[in-house]
């Protein structure tokens, strides 16, 4: 009597992210194969890692009681060096990025200039900062000058690329209007081009200041001045309290810089 009719076997599944089944399966298979190979060839000295766990715990504990005082002079000196390097390199890099960026915009520069400037950008962007720092330390000797030049060099590529992209997206109508009034090339730059790109350019410069500070903490490892050298020394001496103090300071400064650069950029736009 009570023949219960089983509900129709309906079930729905969300469509897969990669629609093509062959592509999907080969990606899954390839991933599995790669993972097997990679994990299989991984050489890990587990005994050493286990030994290190105690030390790792000591480091985590050091964050609870960072030691700002015992090496304060060195921390202070490193921080001042890092900050001064950051400021000078950003100003210098941005100043040099202006002509390079102008030259790398296809709609403003003739072809030979364009190629040279794009070349400069490519060279400056392709090497990690720390490798450039190694070369500059060999050339200019140890100290913050080498670090400053490294950061300025990296800044040129970064800023010039973004500036050139902005310039290529320029609103041509405004340029034409100014040109129609009989403006010379410098006047064209000042009245038609500059107002269109300046707010974003300043915003990016502030952002780059941020990046340069973070990088300045790193390039000290290879002898280019700044807090990185102090940090490296503190690790070498196993003074985790000092290392934790330096890391906390870096995080705090980056947070402040990021927060204020966010405000500046918001006000500019």
């Amino acid at each position, binding site marked *: 009597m009570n023949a219960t009719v089983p509900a129709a076997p309906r079930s729905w599944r969300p469509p897969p992210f990669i629609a093509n089944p062959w592509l999907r399966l080969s990606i899954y298979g390839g991933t599995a194969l790669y993972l097997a190979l990679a994990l299989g060839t991984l050489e*890990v000295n587990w005994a050493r890692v286990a030994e290190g*766990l105690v030390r790792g715990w000591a480091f985590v504990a050091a964050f609870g009681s960072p030691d700002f005082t015992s090496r304060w002079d060195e921390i202070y000196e490193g921080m001042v060096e890092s900050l001064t390097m950051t400021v000078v390199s950003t100003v210098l890099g941005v100043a040099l990025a202006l002509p390079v960026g102008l030259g790398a915009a296809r709609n403003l520069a003739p072809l030979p200039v364009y190629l040279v400037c794009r070349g400069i950008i490519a060279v400056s962007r392709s090497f990690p900062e720390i490798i450039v720092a190694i070369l500059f330390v*060999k*050339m200019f000797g140890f*100290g913050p000058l080498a670090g400053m030049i490294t950061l300025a060099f990296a800044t040129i590529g970064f800023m010039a690329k973004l500036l050139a992209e902005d310039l290529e997206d320029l609103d041509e109508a405004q340029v034409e209007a100014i040109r129609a009034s009989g403006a010379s090339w410098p006047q064209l730059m000042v009245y038609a081009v500059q107002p269109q790109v300046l707010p974003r350019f300043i915003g990016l410069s502030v952002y780059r200041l941020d990046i340069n500070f973070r990088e300045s903490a790193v390039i000290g*490892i290879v002898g280019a001045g700044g807090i990185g050298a102090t940090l490296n020394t503190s*690790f070498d001496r196993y003074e985790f309290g000092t290392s934790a103090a330096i890391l906390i300071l870096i*995080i705090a400064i980056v947070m402040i810089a*990021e927060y204020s650069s966010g405000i500046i950029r918001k006000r500019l736009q």
Partner: protein
Amino acid sequence: MPIETLPSGQRAWQRRTMLARLARWAAWMVGVLVVVQCWQIMNADTIWEFVYDAPAQGADLLGRMWPPRWSVLDRLWWPLWDTLNMATLGTALGVVLGVPVAFLAARTTTPSATIARPIALLIIVSSRSINSLIWALLLVTVMGPGVLAGIIAIALRSIGFIGKLLYEALEEIDERQIEAITATGATGAQRIAFGFVPQIMPTFAGISVYRWDINIRESTVLGLVGAGGIGLQLNASVSRLAWPEVTVMFIAILCTVAVSEWVSARVRAAII
């Protein structure tokens, strides 16, 4: 609108008021003073004798770097494989750890805005402000040199990057779809699986591939502090002043970076 009366009695339009102009002038003044002061401090620590012969040093360096010693390439395949593994496994680990952090940090999905969200945001900021080289320096001290330290360093740095971009994507989500899913009586987990995940999937894939590309670039230098990969060989050659070998390694690093950038650009173009 600021209007100024000229001595001749004519009224002229000015872009800014007197006060605004003074304020701008003062800001510029302070800026220039800060830069000059910074330059002075930096100069005090510079040994200028080294700087004066920098062009000669540079020329000398280039002379010694050429011609490249290609035979060293045979020793580089294994470190390159290690570099690739550090970047890939590090990214994978970073994704696994970063995704939950992103869900905790996004206003739309966080279980508690007062406790979980600030903690997640703090994790993201700490991970982002410390370069992977510093993480590697730390981990090499703790667990000894090797690829594992590199993988974990890359992962720790990636958490912040993936977490930040993903939680921003989660906050810009289309709320109506979530509402529709909720209206069917879905549980919290089902809402995430059927409401949030499909919406952020393309962004998520793009972010991961982009971070992988950055990680390849970073893992080429992690060896400088002992975390394995091609950087380790580079460090050894630089220490031995074997500049012809350094040239080959630079070229190898450049090629690796270029290939990874190409792959990531292709994958992202396919997704979007």
